[in-house]
């Protein structure tokens, strides 16, 4: 009886969401194994072996896993899946691409985007763009679950797990990695930042020049609405909302954001929401804790000065 957590390696180290997935995995009170796959894994393996609550780190190394593809990782997981009662991963882009296929191959359901585990097979997950929280009883023998990172705290590091090498099946070669185009930002990552400041389309060409100084001062990640991204004022990966990144920072500052349903779905679990908007009737004020009705082109420089 044990739980398998599928880790994700980002460069050399584990993604923060892996720590959050491991916290979720402790719910069952079963032994936890973490599968670390890729190439050049020494740092990630050392890291994984020190995470509290981990029994074993399964080390799966192969050239073709350098840039992991869904089909190859799925084949790898299938070689060990029968040893586990629970297979769990973070609801990251890779996690959500991978997990349902594994469930289908095991002829079982997968429960995605879980924000709470209330009993060993009872989960809570958002639906209808976050307007509904669905309580789910999963009747399957094997529980296949992806968890929303922001809903779980990160696991600590005072463990000492054994590292066990496992064999990797050859690539099926139905898919091939070609390239990636990553944004290199000095700012904290959107989904794990303590403070997020986000802007809407009305910032226009001044998006960067208005938000950057504030983000710098607050050590904040920068976010944007879908409309703002579509208009080309902000990069795609900055999009916050149902179809972008879902965040839950300590402080969220919405600048010139009206509060469309799809955006609210991405921010509603933030601890404190501050909205600055010139329209006193903007829906965002219904969700915000603190509001300021003001023209953002004068309010942002003022805010910047007030934070000196």
């Amino acid at each position, binding site marked *: 009886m044990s739980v398998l957590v599928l880790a994700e390696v980002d460069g050399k180290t584990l993604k923060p969401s892996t720590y959050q997935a491991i916290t979720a995995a402790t719910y069952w009170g079963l032994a936890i194994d973490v599968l670390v796959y890729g190439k050049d894994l020494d740092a990630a393996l050392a890291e994984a072996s020190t995470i509290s609550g981990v029994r074993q780190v399964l080390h799966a190394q192969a050239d073709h896993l350098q*840039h992991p593809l*869904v*089909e190859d990782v*799925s084949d790898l997981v299938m070689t060990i899946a029968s040893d586990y009662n629970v297979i769990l991963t973070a609801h*990251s*882009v*890779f996690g*959500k*691409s*991978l*997990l*349902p*296929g594994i*469930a*289908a191959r095991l002829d079982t*359901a*997968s429960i995605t*985007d879980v924000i709470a585990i209330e009993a060993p097979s*009872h989960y809570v997950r*958002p*639906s*209808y763009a*976050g*307007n*509904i*929280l*669905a*309580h*789910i*009883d*999963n*009747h*399957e023998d094997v529980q296949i679950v992806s968890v929303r990172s922001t809903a779980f705290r990160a696991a600590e590091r005072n463990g000492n797990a054994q590292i066990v090498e496992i064999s990797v099946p050859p690539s*099926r*070669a*139905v*898919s*091939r*990695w*070609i*390239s*990636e*185009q*990553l944004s290199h930002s000095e700012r904290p990552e959107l989904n794990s930042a303590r403070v997020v400041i986000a802007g809407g389309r009305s910032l226009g060409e001044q998006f960067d020049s208005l938000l950057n100084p504030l983000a710098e001062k607050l050590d904040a990640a920068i976010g944007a609405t879908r409309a703002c991204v579509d208009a080309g004022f902000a990069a*795609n*990966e900055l999009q916050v909302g*149902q*179809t972008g990144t879902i965040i839950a920072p300590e*402080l969220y500052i919405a600048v010139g954001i009206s509060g469309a*349903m799809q955006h609210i779905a991405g921010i509603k679990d933030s601890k*404190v*929401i501050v909205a600055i908007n010139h329209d006193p009737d903007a829906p965002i*004020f219904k*969700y915000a*804790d*603190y*509001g*300021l009705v003001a023209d953002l082109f004068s309010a942002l420089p003022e805010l910047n000065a*007030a*934070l000196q």
Partner: protein
Amino acid sequence: MKVLVAVKHAIDYNVKPDIHTETGQVDLAQVKKAINPFDEISLEEAVRLKERGHVGEIVAVAIGSAEAKDSLRHAYALGADRALLVETDQPLQPLAVAKLLKVIVEREQPQLIFLGKQAVGEDYGQTGQMLAALLGMGVGTFSSALQIAEGHIVVTREIDKGTETIALQLPAVITSDLRLNEPRFIKLPNLMMAKKKAIETLAANDLGVDLRPRFTVTRAVEPAPRPGAVQFATVNELVKQLRQTEVLV
């Protein structure tokens, strides 16, 4: 090349759902429904591939009750060549839908299978990945750009920190993200013509697929409402409050 596009007749994305007081479930009886927006993007992409000469036939397939024909007519109006309804009144979960689609794929033998990255409503986001795994095909999830080449398709995908480009051997499964394209405006004559076109109908129960639910939504609840904003007149008052509540350090 033949393309299959899965079309879900989903809750209209502008509708805020209500919870039925007696059942404790989302009340879907009188709710406005329409083609799932991500499926409309899939269809648009199939039509564009056809316009560029890569695709010969576009088959739209819906799984659901007879009212799903509305979304198939929408698919016809957008440019589908054939429409197929796998009819059932039973609500189906992603694994059952994936298994039904597998039967249709085996029958139709398309080279490309499009699904939306998720259906609005339950927001499971699983069916495309499940279908690809059941078929042993490659999957390109969260696709934002496509290019057809000899025997494969090059897919640009939206990932956590940017984009990634992969190549998938054909046949393959693609799930569409928002930025793949912007669906064209449907002209009224196309919609009128679509009403006259035939929709082939199969009974889901006749396809030899295990449709039983694997989990139960025991209840649906609304998240606790937030109290609404405390308004400030000036930036300085706002900053003072944030410092007092220690969210600004």
